């Protein structure tokens, strides 16, 4: 093997920066899953009966479901009885009244992660809901947002303060019958973020949820629900990290978006869960269901994801294009390195007339990583003049990784126009040498080449996060090339 290839491979090796554990006393349920566990969680949150019942129905349904096997990822069977379904930092005798009263250790954790929550040092222009294990520890800028009628709070609070909205929309996009992990989530979800943008309001700042798994042996099951009423618009970002642990931890979330007439939701994810070590020990199983419903005319939903972490990433942020003239977009960068696996993509379901969708997927495989794009474009009979454009590009770094593409296209209306383009390229030693010969060292060259490859996706991210994503990509691939 030439030294160039060795360098490529050594470049992907880089320590995970967010692997620390916060030493905080936490209160966890013992591992195990039964109706009792669910009733316990529901009681802990003081939930209304309708929600407890919904959870139980979901659980009973889940028990009858077979585990899916069609995905192109491999993992040992998950023992659902060996997971703790509820873990929260031990609350003070008096629950904190404001963020500045939250346990300093927790605030410190978020500061270390670059998400300061304290009043003085908050991120300008970004409201954050911080989720730590099973609970929300605080939400910034709530009052400012409330002045515009925007609701942004933890899911648990929303259940109590805005029950009508929650009842109306919970499960309306992803019913608990949808799939195995969505059913599990519906039964055991603990917290998450809730957001409602009223009619005609453009949300004046980025909204963001930051997920952190801390406790060992626990899973994180959160639910996010975002509703944009007629003519409303919002840009939302989620970030995720976890400590380095030898065991695999399950993160099975559900995200539901509802966009009414001419509403616009832009949902961006920068996923950096602990990916496991170079031999594939540990890391998060990121099994998530994300779906947006373009319910109204001219509604517009954009998913942008940068997936660099997790041992396994398995998700398909999708759009159901029901409203006439509605629009769905999916922009994705998925990176696998070392032993990471990803099976990700999207579903665009065209139901309404004149609906359009765009898919741009960039898969990067390094180390012994396996990266699959799986996407469905479905044009139903009712979808006159529907249009789709898909572009799936894969890049291979080194000789031991894999890239796979599974496109599914179902067209039931002859007026549809569907285009699919795909390419696979290998990061060339030639490209790297060309950069070297211009004075640019190998690591910088790889970053430059990979960032160039992902450019179309990064330009969809909010400015500050685009810069973050580029850096993250550099870190994820450090040690991968030559």
């Amino acid at each position, binding site marked *: 093997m030439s030294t160039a290839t060795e360098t490529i491979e050594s470049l992907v090796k880089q320590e995970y920066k967010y692997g620390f554990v916060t030493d905080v006393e936490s209160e966890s349920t013992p591992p195990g899953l039964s109706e009792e566990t669910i009733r316990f969680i529901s009681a802990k949150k003081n939930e209304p009966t309708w929600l407890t019942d919904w959870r139980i129905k979901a659980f009973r349904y889940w028990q009858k479901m077979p585990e899916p096997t069609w995905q192109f990822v491999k993992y040992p069977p998950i023992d659902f009885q060996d997971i703790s379904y509820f873990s929260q930092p031990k609350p003070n005798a008096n629950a904190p009244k404001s963020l500045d009263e939250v346990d300093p250790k927790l605030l410190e954790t978020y500061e270390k992660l670059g998400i300061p929550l304290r009043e003085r040092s908050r991120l300008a222009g970004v409201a954050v809901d911080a989720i730590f294990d099973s609970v929300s520890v605080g939400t910034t800028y709530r009052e400012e947002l409330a002045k515009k009628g925007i609701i942004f709070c933890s899911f648990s609070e929303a259940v109590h303060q805005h029950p009508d909205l929650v009842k109306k929309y919970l499960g309306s996009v992803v019913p608990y019958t949808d799939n195995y992990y969505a059913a599990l989530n519906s039964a055991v979800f603990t917290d998450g973020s809730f957001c409602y943008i009223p009619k005609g309001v453009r949300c004046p700042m980025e909204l963001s949820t930051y997920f952190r798994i801390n406790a060992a042996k626990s899973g994180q099951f959160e639910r996010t629900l975002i509703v944009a009423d007629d003519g409303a618009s919002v840009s939302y970002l989620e970030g995720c990290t976890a400590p380095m642990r030898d065991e695999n931890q399950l993160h099975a979330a559900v995200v539901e978006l509802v966009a009414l007439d001419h509403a616009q939701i832009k949902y961006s994810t920068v996923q950096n869960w602990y990916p496991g070590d170079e031999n594939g020990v540990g890391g998060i199983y990121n099994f998530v269901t994300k779906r947006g419903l373009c319910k109204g005319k001219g509604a517009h939903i954009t998913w942008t994801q940068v997936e660099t972490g997790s041992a396994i990433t398995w998700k398909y942020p999708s759009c159901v294009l029901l409203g006439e003239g509605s629009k769905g977009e999916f922009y994705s960068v998925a990176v696998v390195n070392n032993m990471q696996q990803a099976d990700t993509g999207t579903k665009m379901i065209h139901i309404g007339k004149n609906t359009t969708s765009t898919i741009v997927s960039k898969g990067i495989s390094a180390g012994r990583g396996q990266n699959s794009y799986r996407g469905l474009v479905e044009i139903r009979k009712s979808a006159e003049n529907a249009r789709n454009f898909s572009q799936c590009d894969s890049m291979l770094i080194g000789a031991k990784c894999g890239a796979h593409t599974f496109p599914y296209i179902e067209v039931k209306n002859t007026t549809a126009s569907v285009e699919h383009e795909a390419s696979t390229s290998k990061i060339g*030693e030639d490209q790297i040498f*060309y*950069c070297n010969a211009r004075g640019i060292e190998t690591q910088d060259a790889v970053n430059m080449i990979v960032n160039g490859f992902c450019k*179309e996706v990064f330009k969809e991210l909010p400015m500050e996060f685009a810069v973050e994503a580029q850096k993250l990509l550099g870190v994820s691939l450090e040690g991968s090339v030559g």
Partner: protein
Amino acid sequence: MSKQPILEINNLHAGVENKKILKGFSLTINAGEVHALMGLNGSGKSTLAAILAGRDGYEVTEGSVKYFGKDLLELDPEERAREGLFLAFQYPVEIPGVNSTYFLKAALNEIRKHHGLQELDAIEFLNLVKDKIKLLDLNEDLLKRSVNEGFSGGEKKRAEIFQMAVLEPKLAILDETDSGLDIDALKIVSSGVNKLKRPDSAQLVITHYQRLLNYIIPDFVHVMADGRIVKSGGKELALELEANGYEAILKG
């Protein structure tokens, strides 16, 4: 004042995986000189260029290469570039999504950093680039595109010379820059190269055909065969080669 040697290659033997390609190659290039290296395909011209630029996969078994008195072969390719060595590639690669201006600015700033100079910001760099564009009579549109992506063969070669103009190397190696160029492109590329000639730098022009040397006038012409120089002379040697062919020279 005696001329300063920039490159001194002495009895260089090198090859790939048990195949010897260079067999006792020697050449000295001084400041202010333009050397043409000619030879048939397979004579080892491009191997020499690759070894000088530091491409992986070649093994040097004997001999030495000095660059400004230092052992060139000890340096990584990026260090050679920062020290002023420039290779105009025979087949420049495409780097999709990486803006040409951004790429070239990164390259220039690496060189500047290496010499303890302040890095240029975007505006300073653009001003510099605009001057060079005019010098070479290139289309500014080139700067907005990704590195070599979708460029025609001629555009790629011109872009290489443009990079050379911006980076101002001490030693420029042009590896068959004329191949695949029509006569107009050849003229543009050659006039660019001629304009970049300076008393403190040197050029090594590698070519298969004499026609490039109608536009770039070399001080020395070397004919290479089987891994070493078999004949050296002035520019008239190129004409002799054109008239009588390689056969005659190699036999003679």
